[in-house]
């Protein structure tokens, strides 16, 4: 019971933190490379705690991100829901991949998302993104092992705390 509470807090805190990370200023040259933090954190929680994080959490997180960024409402919500759905679907395999292979899978998920993002912007008539944004999934995939290990360590600590 205790552990469940603790884990839930870690989960929600990490999601909130990922939203704040999205707002963090970067030098203009690096802007297009900004990794999509909420997606990474959500994928981790889908893999490790599927009972807690599902499509609903993804939708609400995306909506919060949209409101915070003042962008088109529903854009990130839609993309996060799709990412989480795919991650759920392949969860059984993804979970037992070594971390490097997981990174590759995350790269695919994020590339698919980039395509979707491009489509949504095209439909909404928003200005096109610089070409460099297509490299953002690479950054996200490169960061995946660190996100994974960090969150795993936090969760492990919660486990020892409980015992």
């Amino acid at each position: 019971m205790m552990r469940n509470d603790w884990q839930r807090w870690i989960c929600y805190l990490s999601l909130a933190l990922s939203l704040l990370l999205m707002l963090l200023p970067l030098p203009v040259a690096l802007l297009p490379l900004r990794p999509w933090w909420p997606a990474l954190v959500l994928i981790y929680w889908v893999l490790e705690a599927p009972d807690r994080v599902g499509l609903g959490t993804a939708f609400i997180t995306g909506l919060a991100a949209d409101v915070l960024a003042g962008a088109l409402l529903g854009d990130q919500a839609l993309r996060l829901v799709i990412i989480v759905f795919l991650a759920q679907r392949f969860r059984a395999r993804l979970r037992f991949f070594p971390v490097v292979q997981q990174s590759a899978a995350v790269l695919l998920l994020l590339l698919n998302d980039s395509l979707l993002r491009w489509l949504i912007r095209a439909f909404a008539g928003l200005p096109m993104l610089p070409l460099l944004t297509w490299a953002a999934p690479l950054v996200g995939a490169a960061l995946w092992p660190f996100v994974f290990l960090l969150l795993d360590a936090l969760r492990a600590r919660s486990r020892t705390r409980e015992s």
Partner: protein
Amino acid sequence: MALSREGSTSLFAASPGGTLRLAGYLLLAVALMMLDHHNDWLPRVRNATALAVEPAWRLAGMPARWLGDLRETLAEKSSLRSENRKLRDALLLANVRIARMQALVRQNDQLKRLLDAADSLRMQGQLARVIDIDLDPYRRRLVLDRGAREGVRVGQAAVDAHGVMGQVIEALPNTAVLMLVTDPSSALPVIDARSGVRAVAYGSGSGDLLSLPDLPINADIKVGDSLLTSGLGGRFPAGFPAATVVSIAPDRSGSYLRAEARPAARLNRSDQVLLLRDLAEPMGPPAPVRDAGPPASLIGPAPAGQVGAAPPRKTAHAGTRR
């Protein structure tokens, strides 16, 4: 517990309920997007959630502020000294200029009085700090730390020491969102300081340049010309430096010129901005008078003071383009 559930499903198949829920969420998201895109919902939603949004913005802006403070503390003595010297020189120069300006202002005042014009140099402003966060980086917007509670209103123009920066497009209780002149939906009426040609400078979304499309092919605009705000439209006060022309080329059809200009304001480096209070007298053409027809005096006895009263102030969003 999770493993046992795993065993019951195959490696790929998701439960049909999952797909159904996916479809539901997707529909919801698409509906939201369409509503937002067409009705411009977001400001209202954001006003409702301002209580949560503002602290998040401030929280996200904190690391940048700490970094800035740290840099200031760690700055070397010699660099401080040289900076000090440079600032002193600049101050001297500025003082000289101010002295000259004052003479000009005095002269201008006298001329204005001669012309029986109202004293229109009453320009008031309010300093605001930029909260250093990126909203959507592809729309050029800044978050300021002054909001409606401090009297910031939508439509106020913002300037820095070098020129016009943009206008306030959203005033939350404690913060405000500033749309820079380089934002793709920004339009700024300008006038060429050398030749007097009028034009509209649009933000170009990509890069830090303004674009002036659809200039007449014989327009007298040259590379290096400085553009001032013209004050037409009544949103930006007249006479502020706006941009410098960097390139001119015929557009694709060959029947118009297309110029690009670099904004005069230091959009990327400004830490503080000055929000101008609305001018006492809106510049530009007066709003068209509504009641056409015979003057009221011909119809009947009009109440004194109504005939010839100043036309209502123009409040249309002259400076925005959606």
